[in-house]
């Protein structure tokens, strides 16, 4: 029994250690090795030096995918925060059926992204889609939601906001409930307006939640895959290709394992960099 006590902790954590070595440590090292090789899995690996990196820096599609991600984030994050905060503010007052409304806003969060994408593909349809019919009914022209290269990525960002906003409403609700009532009472005595209270009390108090939302949506934006894959296949003119979709295509359509790994490594470094910078902001501001 005594000897047992010394070993048991290690036995208990051994699944983690195995998993870490096999599915984390080894893949990271192996992916670095892969970036110096050309390999289609079937024939032997071929050492190619830095050529994958040279190719990456000249790759216009990859650059486009980074720009697309940026467009997505620039639209998605502010929109998400404004809508979520607005609805959370409403749900945070005395309200009948609050549970029902919260559950309704949350519904798209639990449903698979594939379902949401198939659904919105129809809503965005050029001739028979809901949005264009609405526009025509009120006397406006049709919009190429998924066919116009300038609009396709914003359309996907809008859909993603619709899908995820429920989660952020709930996170903001939790944040709002941490603001002490006395603050608002004191502001009332001073005669502060609704907007003043919002900007001077609420917003600074829920800053940590806002930053959490920013970081979570950034990571989500960087993982964008299924939406462009199903909706547009990355088109039109690569205007919706995301980095993950491009990595997937390089790896599993063309079997460029070395190059795909290079893209993955480089993209992961960008993600880490962005998230670290964002976290710095949080630590500074909070």
């Amino acid at each position, binding site marked *: 029994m005594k000897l047992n006590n010394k070993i048991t902790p290690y036995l208990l954590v051994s699944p983690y250690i195995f998993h870490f070595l096999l599915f984390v440590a080894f893949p990271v090292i192996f992916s670095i090795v892969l970036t110096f090789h050309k390999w289609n899995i079937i024939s032997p690996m071929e050492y190619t030096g830095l050529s994958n990196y040279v190719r990456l820096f000249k790759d216009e599609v990859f650059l486009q995918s980074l720009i697309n991600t940026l467009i997505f984030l620039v639209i998605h994050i502010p929109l998400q925060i404004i809508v979520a905060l607005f609805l959370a503010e409403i749900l945070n007052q005395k309200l009948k059926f609050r549970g029902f409304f919260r559950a309704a806003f949350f*519904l798209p969060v639990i449903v698979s992204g594939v379902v949401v994408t198939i659904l919105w593909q129809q809503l965005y349809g050029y001739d028979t889609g*809901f949005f264009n019919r609405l526009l025509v009914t009120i006397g406006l022209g049709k919009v190429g939601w998924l066919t116009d290269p300038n609009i396709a990525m914003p359309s996907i960002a809008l859909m993603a906001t619709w899908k995820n906003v429920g989660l952020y409403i709930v996170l903001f609700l939790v944040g709002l409930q941490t603001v002490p009532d006395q603050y608002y009472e004191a502001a009332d005595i001073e005669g502060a307006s609704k907007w003043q209270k919002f900007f001077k009390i609420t917003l600074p108090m829920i800053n940590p939640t806002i930053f959490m939302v920013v970081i979570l949506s950034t990571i989500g934006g960087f993982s964008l895959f299924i939406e462009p894959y*199903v909706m547009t296949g990355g088109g039109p003119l690569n205007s919706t290709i995301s980095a993950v979709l491009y990595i997937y295509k390089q790896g599993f359509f063309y079997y460029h394992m070395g190059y795909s790994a290079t893209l993955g490594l480089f993209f992961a470094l960008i993600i880490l960099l962005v998230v670290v910078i964002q976290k710095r902001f949080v630590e500074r501001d909070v």
Partner: protein
Amino acid sequence: MKILKRILFYLFLTMGALIFIYPFYWMVAASLAPENEIANLTLFPSTFTLSSYTQMFEKIPIGRSLVNSIIVASSVTIGVLVFGSMIGYALSRLKFKGRNTIFYVIIFTMTLPFQITLIPQYIIMVKFGWVDTYLALIVPYFINALGIIMFRQYFKSIPQSLIDAARLDGCGDLKIIFKILWPNSVPALVTIGIITFMASWNEVLWPLIVIRDESLMTMPQLITLFAVGGRAESQLGVKLASAVVLALPIVIAYIFFQKYFIQSMASSGIKE
């Protein structure tokens, strides 16, 4: 005046809720409508027909994919609960050399983007001969850093006296975890269970990579390929029917356990 304002407010809120519910309602209505009526955005089809569904069942092995999804998501969930609580217990309740190191490694791996390991993990699956097996869909997901951290956190809040008493009765560590801690950790088990099951159920990218055999595909994967490839053709109804079938199990569970879903997903801050 006040009442009028209140009514307008609820009207506004109801419209807001409709924006989130209506598309799903339309999806179900359209999947039950005759093909030529779908384009009209009918809310109440003239006749209800299951033809979209029967065609879908003929075209793709949807029933089989449902079984696959259930097998995969349940196995992953069980694995995460069992291994997560073992590791979380060791990290929170046992003293041993390297404990902090392991904890920090877990925290670090949580920040590691999956994009970096995608290709090498696929190659491992190829080398193991796991491509086109359940193993590829299940085993890599057995360990979940977030699950471990949450178990560790929760187990810390359980009084030591409970564990001491069990030890005096001669319980081993495994018995302590599963007979003493589990019954006292239902909220943690529910939360971690829901998050894990949902994440596994909705996962598409990894199945697309490691499963090529249609009879082993998970439901979201099969439906993704169905929607992307030409097999749904221009038949909207069939595509929408497949989306309904994919959404249905989770939505039913959500209707009954709504509160748990919302709490669990909010507490992890994780999203699809």
